[in-house]
């Protein structure tokens, strides 16, 4: 384009019309985006990875999972059998975390305990999610009378103190890992169902759901493809927070002698076994299970918090 010399008599008011020429339209140029678009998950991950506390929680969880799988295999000792003459050995080169009241290696038992804790935590979260999504999805989507009845049932279950149910079930079914998981999920899914319902009720009014309804999509498909993927954020956060509370519950029950019992290794059992020991100065028997259970719960809690911030669309920049 040639640059015109502006004659002195032309002011802002009297620019001649022929100076204005339409700019050529460029189809390719018009549609091009300045930056690559970020998907919801990519954006969430980007924000999560900037949250150092949450990331350190995630790293710890990954390490813990690794050690729970390989720790007991790598160790030369058995978790549930010990040598009585090796009772209460302080941490050393042979026994990294020392030995407990029956001469069992605390290092091996700690990772056995991690197995149990993580198994209980993940199983409880998984079952909660499954029931919660089905219940909350149907309740929120159907609305009306169905929703009313389903919510009343939730309200009743919500009122039952879960620990009493857990203890009663343990008495009836006998203490085992499966009983603990069943007992935890009997009332545990209620929180998840409420969250899913809230999400579904909000999203189901959006236009794209109306559009799929207009196309005659089946209800189950609308819930599965249209509603759930868009309510994944809060569901994942709730899952992350279910895990530590399940881990806590298992340790708690084992600690009061209603869950897994000695010689099996669970962090709750180990803490209970060492109650007498700490009074005589054998601190390591309590320290390691206590340290790892606290750190595990800490890791899941900060990860949950971080995910909550990262997955919240309102905070998206």
């Amino acid at each position, binding site marked *: 384009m040639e640059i015109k010399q502006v004659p002195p008599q032309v002011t802002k008011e009297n620019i001649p019309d022929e100076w204005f020429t339409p700019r050529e339209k460029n189809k390719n140029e018009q549609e091009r985006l300045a930056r690559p678009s970020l998907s919801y998950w990519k954006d969430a991950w980007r924000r999560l990875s900037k949250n150092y506390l949450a990331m350190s929680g995630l790293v710890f969880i990954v390490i813990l999972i690794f050690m729970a799988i390989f720790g007991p295999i790598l160790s030369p000792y058995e978790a549930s059998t010990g040598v009585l003459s090796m009772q209460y050995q302080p941490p050393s080169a042979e026994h990294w975390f020392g030995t407990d009241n029956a001469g069992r290696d605390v290092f091996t038992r700690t990772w056995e305990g991690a197995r149990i804790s993580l198994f209980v935590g993940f199983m409880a979260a998984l079952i909660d999610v499954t029931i919660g999504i089905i219940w909350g999805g149907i309740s929120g989507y159907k609305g009306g009378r169905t*929703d*009313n009845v389903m*919510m*009343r049932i939730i*309200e*009743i279950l919500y*009122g*039952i*103190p879960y*620990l*009493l*149910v857990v*203890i*009663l*079930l343990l*008495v*009836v079914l006998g203490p085992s890992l499966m009983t603990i998981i069943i007992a935890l999920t009997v009332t545990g899914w209620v929180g998840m169902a409420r969250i899913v319902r809230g999400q579904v009720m909000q999203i189901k009014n959006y236009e794209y759901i109306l559009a799929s309804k207009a196309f005659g999509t089946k209800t189950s498909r609308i819930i599965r493809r249209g509603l759930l993927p868009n309510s994944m954020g809060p569901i994942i956060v709730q899952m992350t927070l279910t895990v*530590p509370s399940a881990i*806590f519950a298992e*340790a*708690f029950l084992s*600690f*009061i*002698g*209603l869950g897994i019992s000695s010689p099996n290794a669970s962090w709750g059992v180990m*803490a209970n076994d060492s*109650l007498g020991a*700490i*009074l005589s100065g054998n*601190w390591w028997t*309590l320290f390691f299970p*206590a340290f790892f*259970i*606290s*750190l595990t*719960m*800490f890791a899941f*809690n*900060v990860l949950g918090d971080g995910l909550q911030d990262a997955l919240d669309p309102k905070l998206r920049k």
Partner: protein
Amino acid sequence: MLKYILKKLLIMLFTLWIIITLTFVLMVSVPGSPFNSESSSNEIVQQNLEKHYNLDKPMHIQYLLYLKSVVTFDFGPSIKQPNQTVNDLLGRGFPISAELGIVTIIVALISGITLGILAALRHNRIIDYAAMAIAVLGISIPNFILATLLIQQLSVNWGIFPVATWKSWSHMVLPVLALATGPMAIIARLTRSTMLEVLTQDYIKMARAKGLAPWKIIVKHALRNALMPVVTIMGTLFVGIMTGSFVIEQIFAIPGMGKYFVESINHRDFPVIMGTTVFYSSFLIIMLFLVDIAYGILDPRIKVNNKEGD
């Protein structure tokens, strides 16, 4: 408002009935009779015992008798301690548990709210980070671990507080501390986040512009709205504290409800198990109900015609 209360009341009664029935069904299906362990008893003695405790009647009669005993609040004698009725045990254990629970919730509320306000007022500064660090730690450390650590450090090593039992104020410090830390952390986090939200609202700016004293703005204007979510979770928190006190009572050898409950389970003492479960659940459910009502009164947004169904 009346309709709201009535609706909640109905749900509460139904929940109670479910728990009562559930307890009965579970207890009946437990393998093992409470008399099995007694080696001295022969066939006839056993039959007489079962007759005395109505264990020989058909199931539905047992259930009706049981319902009647619940309604009249008479849970009968304990099987294992024949001179004691369940009501005696409840009467002895419950006041202690309730005392522990109430002191704990008061401590948790005061410290949690204070911590939350401090953190919100000094947002993103040292105090905020410190308060939130305490809060996350409080949520992460299980109460029974905290209790054992406290006993080891404060009573065994330093000898400041008594190790166990329940006699004077100094006996209360450690159990309350162990039990209150978790709820305190939850309250602190909740207060902080709602406080931060409330403090940016226009009416707070307005109050500042009017020249109100800062403490007055916080206490009278901000806190009132910031505390609503805390009221919402009060019921659940209280339930958590009261059931959490089971293990704390065990550790500190406090003769509360938790002790009798765990003992009765180990002894298969059916009347005591049923009695404590039903009594405890009813107590907790009634507390939840009261919190719901209080919330309905406090929050003007909950109105009589709540069509949403939630």
